[in-house]
């Protein structure tokens, strides 16, 4: 696995407003009927888009090519389906900025190299308004300075230290790390009462 550092994400932004946007809305369950993640991006927010018609930001060609997604509170709540961040990432999004995220969604995103940073509710709304007012506005999320900015405004962003470090030094993919110490793992297993016949 080549080490890929993620220091910053720049580009235009897709604003998706709403609190508690759950994983069933991000990617409805019927699209999970597959043994791979291929093609999921086509169904991102599919039912929301159908119900909102042209007014859903994802249906608006002005946001085509956006690399940042700006959301509100408790984004990604609900199921553990990694299909949700997979669909987002496969659509070209490289970072998500929002008020807060569900824990499982956040962890799944880290595992894919998709940073989810939090900002204040006011900042989230301002960033969404900026993208809505001028979809070609360029944003930069800098993980070194932990700021999200446009040419005119800048807001502090937050990311738990462990996740941030992982992106900065390229160790966000945990598998390699977890495989390093087999003897120590074996040792823990051998000490657990339920794995040693309750002796």
């Amino acid at each position, binding site marked *: 696995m080549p080490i890929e550092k993620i220091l910053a994400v720049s580009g235009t932004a897709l604003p998706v407003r709403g609190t508690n946007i759950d994983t069933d809305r991000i990617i409805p*369950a019927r699209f*999970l009927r597959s043994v791979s*993640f291929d093609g999921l991006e086509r169904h991102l927010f599919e039912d929301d888009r159908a119900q909102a018609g042209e007014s859903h930001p994802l249906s608006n060609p002005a946001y085509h090519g956006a690399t940042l997604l700006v959301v509100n509170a408790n984004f990604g709540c609900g199921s553990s389906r990694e299909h949700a961040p997979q669909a987002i990432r496969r659509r070209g999004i490289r970072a998500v900025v929002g008020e807060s995220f569900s*824990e499982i969604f956040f962890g799944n995103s880290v595992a894919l190299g998709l940073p989810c940073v939090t900002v204040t509710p006011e900042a989230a709304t301002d960033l969404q308004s900026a993208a809505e007012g001028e979809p070609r506005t360029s944003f930069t999320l800098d993980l070194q300075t932990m700021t999200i900015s446009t040419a005119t405004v800048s807001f502090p962003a937050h990311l738990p230290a*462990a996740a941030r470090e992982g992106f900065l030094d390229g160790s966000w993919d*945990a598998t390699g790390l977890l*495989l390093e110490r087999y003897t120590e*793992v074996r040792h823990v297993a051998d000490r*657990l009462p339920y794995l040693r016949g309750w002796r």
Partner: protein
Amino acid sequence: MPSTLLEKVWNAHAVRKLPNGQTQLFVGLHLIHEVTSPQAFDMLRGRGGQVMFPDRTIATVDHIVPTKDQRRPFLDVMAEDMLSALERNCREAGVRMFDLASGSQGIVHVVGPELGLTQPGMTIACGDSHTSTHGAFGAVAFGIGTSQVRDVLASQCLALEPLKVRRIRVDGQLGSGVYAKDVILEIIRRLGVNGGVGYAYEYAGDVIDNMSMDERMTICNMSIEGGARVGYVNPDDTTVEYLRGRRFAPQGDEFERAAVWWRSLASDGGASFQDEVSIDAGAIRPTVTWGINPGQSVYVDERLPKPSTLPREEREAVEEALTFMGLAGGDPIAGTRIDVAFVGSCTNARLSDLREAARVIQGQHVAPTVRALVVPGSQAVRDAAEREGLHRVFLSAGFEWRGAGCSMCLAMNQDRLEGREVCASSSNRNFKGRQGSPVGRTLLMSPAMVAAAAVAGEIVDVRTFSRAH
């Protein structure tokens, strides 16, 4: 130093502190199913890895199985592909699987406990958010994504941030017609759908102490709907007696030694919690959700919130939910017409749930406008229910009696809502589109309330319904 169960179990499974501050945690039991595991096996193969502890992973099939005609190959080609992929992966990796022919197949969170695989003190992971269910035994159990399923297959470990613990005490006495489902809906309504982010919920107090394991599982199951990835109950006599004699529980002398360890894991008196919440059980009434997340609920004798009377920040979300649901603020929830009644899911499809639903409908008939189905949580639940004759009660009342699976909880199979149908459901999520129709509508409630609604054709208070019939 006095510690919580979470700390004890965490420390027993901690391999090391990772350079980034996370803990590398050993996973004692890994459960897999057909939806979130095939990509994980592919990723593992792509890296030339193999399953490190194949005997600590157990598979079953639940989300996509048809609940009517289960003959293989399934008529649904996609479902057949997904099951075949799971079978192939398990065979190649040497992972034990409880398939349709095993007699032990069912929803992964129903099967683990009833087989005695789920035990106190274990760390349990599964690519499914309702893994929190297993916390009812005093295990530390959480849902993970597919990349993490790959990590567990490869290393039997996960990299995790430590969790804070919130103790939620439920004391007093539950009224008749008020169930574990109502307790957890109450907790979610009070603490919010994201109130538990970063926390493990420890459920305690007289009411929890007096609950059966089935009821404790219902509570822990929906921890995730409150944002808490982990929920647990301290192991006690009820836990130990539930496990005695189960197929994969320790036997004989080993069981007695195990029981000593299990009991020792309960949070110590004097353990400190980051937060404590107290709930008076006597005040809880049968609860029904009216919106598009499980926190949007009212008691069955209450009215829906009126957006105009709410503070600005809440108004928009309530309006969105009412509009989607086609309900009017200020209206009573009782009397809301339903089209479908679903008794099922990992929240409420165990034997005791089916008994309660059957008791309510005994000698009555489903309303002519309602399609009603009972989907047992596992083949074992189905068999046990049939031994008691519950299936006859359901069938003669006009319910369909199905094979075990997730069914209409998320409709990855043939069971789903059509169009704008309204479903009274004993499941756990009322998200937009959850039950298969993008515009279908779900009202969550206890199995007894679903049963009463099926007969009445509308939402009714099970407390007065049962008295009147």
